[in-house]
């Protein structure tokens, strides 16, 4: 059993660990905290348009999708669906088309794979729907979203105000609070009973994504049954319930594959190499001192600037946080951001450059270490927000890194 170390337990790291574990490796997954999934929409954004060789050819040669190739992209997405399906989480969609989904601000976003609860809200069919405004829930702007959707011609028939009886009132509730309440049959029944009278004439209803956390599939189905209408979910402000459901499924998949998870681990450096050009593992800084974790292969899935894989300093340098690998970036701090948050951001493309083998490379494109791999948000090359490629890059690069690491 090849010992493999994965650093970072976001979408990239969890997926890589699960894949490696299923292929028989002895995987240790080190992570400092929990990350991107819990603030995301829970969908798999691959590209804004359907995947094809033509689309790929438009991307720069160093783009992770180009390095992977169309076949490996498809394969990674298939593996993803398989793994989460085993954990009773179904994702819809396919690589030859995209789903167009309404957002909580009334815009439409394009994604490739969406959980069933969200895909039911796809706008392609032009079927009319209502949006639900939940009493006392500040994190879903139903009226605002409806107004904006209507302005862009979407078939929103109206907004229904739904009461929330028996709501704990001592503090404001987040999506996770409502989702946990929806997991409870008694509370759910009482609430749905209060909703029924308001839903006359409603056939299809978009709700914020709060229909259950641990038992979300049954919560949603039971709700549809009870109300006699079709429901779909719209993800909203963090904490993201769809993101948490996905994270949970991947964690279980990882444990089922024998992955050993170490949380609260702050990876700070290299275990001494056994021979030049290789790494032996990673040192984690704990309260009780440094702890070494050795492996035959190390996959860095530490994320980008947001979650600490990259550290952007005041003096204009950007550092990779575990091995101090070279980072592609510009050194004029003022140039890192664009004028508008909605424009392409230069900093979003900063990261570690990898070659076809998903090993970090030097300026001459030579791998720095033969057994060190990098994947996910840590990689240089594109603005994932603008491209609509975040989760796709995570999954594809993770799968490729594992494939290379276990070769």
């Amino acid at each position, binding site marked *: 059993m090849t010992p493999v170390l994965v650093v970072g337990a976001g979408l990239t790291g969890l997926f890589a660990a699960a894949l490696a574990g299923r292929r028989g490796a002895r995987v240790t997954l080190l992570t400092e905290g*929990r990350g991107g999934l819990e603030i995301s929409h829970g969908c798999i954004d691959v590209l804004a348009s359907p995947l094809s060789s033509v689309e790929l050819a438009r991307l720069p040669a160093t783009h992770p999708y180009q390095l992977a190739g169309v076949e490996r992209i498809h394969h990674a997405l298939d593996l993803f669906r398989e793994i989460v399906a085993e954990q009773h989480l179904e994702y819809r969609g396919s690589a030859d088309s995209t789903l167009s989904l309404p957002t909580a601000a009334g815009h439409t976003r394009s994604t490739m794979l969406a959980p069933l609860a969200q895909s039911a809200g796809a706008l392609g069919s032009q079927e009319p729907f209502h949006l639900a405004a939940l009493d006392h829930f500040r994190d879903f702007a139903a009226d605002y979203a409806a107004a904006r959707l209507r302005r862009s011609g979407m078939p929103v028939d109206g907004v229904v105000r739904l009461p929330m009886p028996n709501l704990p009132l001592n503090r404001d509730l987040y999506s996770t609070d409502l989702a946990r309440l929806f997991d409870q049959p008694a509370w759910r029944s009482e609430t749905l009973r209060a909703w029924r009278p308001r839903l006359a004439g409603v056939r299809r209803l978009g709700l914020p994504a709060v229909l259950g956390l641990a038992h979300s599939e049954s919560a949603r189905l039971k709700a549809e049954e009870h109300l006699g209408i079709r429901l779909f979910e719209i993800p909203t402000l963090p904490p993201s319930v769809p993101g948490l459901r996905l994270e949970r499924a991947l964690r279980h998949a990882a444990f089922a594959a024998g992955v050993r998870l170490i949380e609260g681990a702050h990876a700070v450096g290299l275990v001494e190499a056994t021979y030049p050009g290789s790494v032996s593992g990673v040192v*984690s800084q704990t*309260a009780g001192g440094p702890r070494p974790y050795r492996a035959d292969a190390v996959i860095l899935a530490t994320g980008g600037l947001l979650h600490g894989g990259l550290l952007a300093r005041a003096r204009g340098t950007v550092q990779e946080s575990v091995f101090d690998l070279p980072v592609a970036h510009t050194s004029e701090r003022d140039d890192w951001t664009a004028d508008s948050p909605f424009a392409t951001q230069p900093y979003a493309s900063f990261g570690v450059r990898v070659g076809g083998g998903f090993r970090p490379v030097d300026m001459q494109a030579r791998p720095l270490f033969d057994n060190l791999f990098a994947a996910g948000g840590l990689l240089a090359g594109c603005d994932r927000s603008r491209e609509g490629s975040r989760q796709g890059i995570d999954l594809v690069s993770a799968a490729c890194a594992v494939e290379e690491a276990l070769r």
Partner: protein
Amino acid sequence: MSQPALSADLCLKCNICTAACPVAAATDLFPGPKAVGPQAQRYRHPSLPLPDLSVGWCSGCGTCSRVCPHGVAVAEINIQAKARLARETGIPLRDQVISRPDLLGRFGTPLAPLANLALSAMPVRWLMERIIKIHRHAPMPAFRTRTFRSLRRAELLSKPDPDVGTGVIRVAYFHGCGTNYYEPELGGMALDVLQRLGCEVVVPPQGCCGLPLQSNGLFDAARAYAARNIRSLSAFARANYHIVGTSTSCVLSLKHDYRTILGIQSEEADLLAENAYDFFEFLALYLDDRLEALPLRQVEARALYHPPCQLKAHGVGTPALAVLQRIPGLTVDLSDSECCGVAGTYGLKAEKYAVARTVGSGLFDQAADGRYDFLISDSETCRWWMAGHARLPVLHPLEVLVRALG
């Protein structure tokens, strides 16, 4: 401004800690660790009274710090704020009492049979709840007639022996109040297993780690306890003894809380922290080869392992699980829950009991699945609480290992 308070700067308000907090999931009385931690910290002025009472609902489990991806010491901020709150509102007699398990043990041990009888009598517990506000259903461990230290006098050592360089791994065992007064056999097992694995094991002078005092806001008293332990144990560390404990919460205090929460800065405190280990962490780091060489007997059983919050806070994962998984015949499932609910002394309190019970309900439901012969957990307060609610035996992973070692 303390180090944790300074880390409030790093908070992005992402709510990851709020989503993971077991107490916020159990009650709306607690606004969540982000709200009472880095968010409220901006409102706390050193010379004005604290504006918020809701921080009192934090149980100190540490889940928030562990899941924060940005380096905010959320739990530490909350624990310090709670201590300030306790000082401002006054610390009740109950908290003064339950935060001193060493004194309770010292008085309870000579009176063990009587004390245990009283504590198991519902009228007595009912009265305790009325007068001192310890919930009548809060599981309490039974006093023993002999302390661990009195049973293993041979290993007691008042001053470290100089290291003569034989290469033998030297261990100074930290037992904690739990082992000393309530579970002396566990301490015996620790010494025996370490000796069997070739270590030189001694029991150094030590006192209560002070964690219950810290959790109840009695920082000065906690610091006094800490100072004594640091003085004694750092001397052993300097002489190349590894300080190893079976109470994972006590060891976390030695490693982390003394410096980060109580703010003790000294070379001795560093020396102790860098040489303190949870039992199975120590086995994995230094004795794994020797352990692998020992034959393990069948233990035909199905068990549910719940790693305590304080173990996860060490940042070394769950080292006992790897060992348990090697035991033939034993099927170990991993608990889905972040926290069993007791959080040290939190669940004992009359006003907190219901919340603590709700926090642990997921774990108890999983345990009630009916398929488990016993539960496993590394912290004694968790074990007693879990045993009381799940109505199954709850063992330290060391106890399971000992069964397999025969």
